[in-house]
């Protein structure tokens, strides 16, 4: 390897548990009884349904369209009938339902007519971007940011380097590792397409040094045009800003994006999805999911989007009766799921069944500073915690709360077992809520002041001075009163009629 690698601050050497799944060939998960596709599987605006209940759809057919720039279409992941469009439980930090399209598969898995691009090398970058969007590609690494938006930034700005991120640094997860081992050709070809779309000068595919099999597979497919880099295994080396630091030595400024450092980063699975979209016109309809932890046969599954999580768990020998909690994502950054019926979506990389050991209770902070030593963003986690605990939202922002990547290193080393990241997430969401409230209040103030001003201007109208309206003729006033009386009577009669109709129901007026 010729590239000189750099180092990022902090981080942890964790026990990875990847040996459980990284050598087992992934299998295709069978068609589930029901496919539940949330309209929002990405960051941004939810898609808008294009199909109706009872309609027959084909695999890959667009069933919801993008609703805005930061939005992507959604496709049916198998052929069948739309049986419902409504709210179902989805993966969400607080127990929540979200609008989904539910499909009953017909078992034929019949593909929609697709329009591939044969010669991508001669295609305009903007057209590639359009294909990527039409095929519903979003960051498949975990955050789920629509890929066309990131690529568009690359089209508008000079891109020094494209980094394809195969550094799967969270313990237990091996879905990217398996994807590389099984589909390295797709990834390398997809990388070349993205590179063409963003016109990157250099191109790097990065993996961790504990993924030798994946490294060898990629090596077989790359040429001189792409550099293959193996970075030292240390959590969170796969974090966007951390990986940029390791490969280029550049630091992305606080609040900035990689593009500000001339870099575009995409996940390996995203690159494979781009290859499929361009050469076959195939949208994102399935993904690799690692099912591991306390199950009989941990392994990677190729799962159709919309498959309920419980189906994947059962396929790997999970007993639904057990009381063990299930983590969506990895142990460091994942979240506990409330319902096992939630569907696999574009960002679902891992289902991890926890052991049932009780967690040690949280004790007071002793200000040991262990968290500050390992923070990869060089924050002061103990200060962030102190402010979040006392709801001092301004204080936590002074300590750069929003630079926190929620990697969980601080909570792992905390000798008092304080769930630090949960405090940061709480504080971040409180600040966001506060901002929404503030902007709503600002709008109301503007409208209130505008109204006051208007009333002043047209004095004589409005509640400020209703008496000063020109005096009406007594006859006209009586007519008006009679008219209002009649209207009130009609309205009362309507209400009575309605109440009679819904007799037995609770009177909700």
């Amino acid at each position, binding site marked *: 390897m010729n590239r000189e690698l750099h180092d990022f601050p902090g981080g942890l050497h964790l026990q990875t548990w990847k040996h459980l799944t990284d050598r087992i060939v992934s299998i295709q998960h069978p068609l589930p009884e029901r496919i539940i596709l949330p309209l929002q599987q990405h960051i941004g605006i939810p898609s808008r349904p294009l199909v109706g209940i009872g309609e027959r759809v084909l695999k890959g057919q667009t069933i919801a369209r993008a609703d805005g720039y930061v939005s992507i279409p959604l496709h049916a992941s198998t052929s069948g009938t739309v049986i419902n469009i409504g709210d179902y439980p989805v993966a969400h930090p607080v127990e929540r339902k979200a609008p989904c399209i539910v499909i009953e598969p017909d078992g034929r898995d019949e593909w929609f007519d697709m329009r591939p691009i044969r010669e991508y090398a001669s295609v305009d970058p903007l057209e590639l971007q359009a294909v990527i969007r039409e095929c519903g590609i979003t960051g498949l690494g975990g955050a789920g940011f629509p890929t066309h938006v990131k690529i568009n930034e690359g089209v508008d700005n000079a891109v020094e380097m494209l980094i394809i991120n195969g550094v799967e640094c969270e313990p237990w997860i091996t879905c990217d590792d398996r994807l590389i081992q099984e589909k390295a050709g797709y990834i390398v070809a997809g990388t070349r397409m993205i590179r063409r779309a963003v016109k990157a000068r250099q191109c790097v595919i990065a993996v961790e040094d504990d993924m030798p099999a994946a490294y060898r597979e990629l090596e077989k497919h790359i040429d001189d045009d792409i550099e293959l880099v193996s970075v030292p295994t240390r959590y969170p080396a796969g974090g966007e800003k951390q990986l940029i630091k390791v490969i280029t030595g550049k630091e992305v400024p606080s609040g900035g994006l990689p593009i500000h450092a001339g870099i575009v980063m995409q996940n390996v699975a995203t690159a494979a999805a781009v290859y499929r979209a361009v050469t076959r016109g195939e949208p994102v309809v399935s993904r690799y999911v690692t099912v591991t932890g306390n199950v009989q046969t941990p392994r990677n599954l190729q799962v159709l989007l919309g498959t309920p999580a419980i189906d994947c768990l059962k396929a790997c020998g999970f007993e639904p009766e057990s009381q063990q909690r299930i983590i969506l994502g990895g142990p460091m950054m994942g979240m506990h799921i409330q319902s096992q019926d939630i569907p696999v979506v574009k960002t679902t990389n891992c289902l991890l069944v926890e052991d049932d050991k009780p967690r040690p*209770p949280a*004790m007071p902070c002793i200000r040991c500073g262990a968290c500050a030593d390992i923070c990869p963003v060089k924050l002061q986690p103990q200060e962030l915690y102190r402010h979040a605990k006392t709801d001092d939202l301004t204080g936590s922002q002074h300590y750069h709360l929003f630079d926190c990547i929620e990697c969980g290193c601080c909570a792992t080393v905390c000798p008092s077992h304080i769930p630090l990241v*949960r405090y940061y997430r709480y504080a971040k969401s409180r600040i966001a809520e506060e901002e929404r409230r503030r902007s709503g209040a600002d709008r109301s103030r503007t409208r209130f002041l505008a109204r006051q001003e208007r009333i002043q201007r047209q004095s004589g109208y409005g509640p400020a001075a209703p008496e000063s309206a020109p005096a009406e003729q007594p006859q006209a006033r009586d007519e008006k009163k009679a008219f209002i009386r009649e209207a009130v009577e009609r309205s009362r009669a309507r209400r009575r009629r309605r109440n009679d109709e819904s007799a037995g129901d609770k009177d909700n*007026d």
Partner: protein
Amino acid sequence: METLAAIALLAFLLALAVAGVSLAAPYRRALEPSLIDQVDALLPQTQCGKCDYSGCRPYAAAVADGRADINQCPPGGEATIRQLARLLGRQGKPLNPAHGREEPPTVAVIDEELCIGCVKCIRACPVDAIIGAAKMMHTVIPEQCTGCELCIAPCPVDCISMETPESDSPDWVWMKPEAVQPLRP
């Protein structure tokens, strides 16, 4: 001689600095928002009048003058009281129940079938969130409604009710972890 010159120079520089600061003071003060503005910025702008003032800004003026207490705003609730206390350097206190209770936000909904088009609610709405005209059905723009309830009383047919806004808003917050167990003495 040199010492005297040095002292004179330092004294001159000091005088210059003092003059500069005092000349700039009025401009700096003009740039700072007034106390009324600062209080007003913390109020929820529902314009509901539950504080016994005709709107958020009159209440802000009263608070800034010390005529009104900081615990008279039910829509703002505990959070607003805390922020006001911090701004004014006072002790926080519970909401005065004489002005109402803190409740989750609601929006007004007009039962359009019962509306007779009397425009009384339109005149009552402090933020112009109700649209309609005389003898025409009225409706509330839910995004603009502050939930002030001022339209309820004037309605002659009682067709306005307060409802919780639709759930697809992004309003959710991560749960705060339970308090850390205190150390035993």
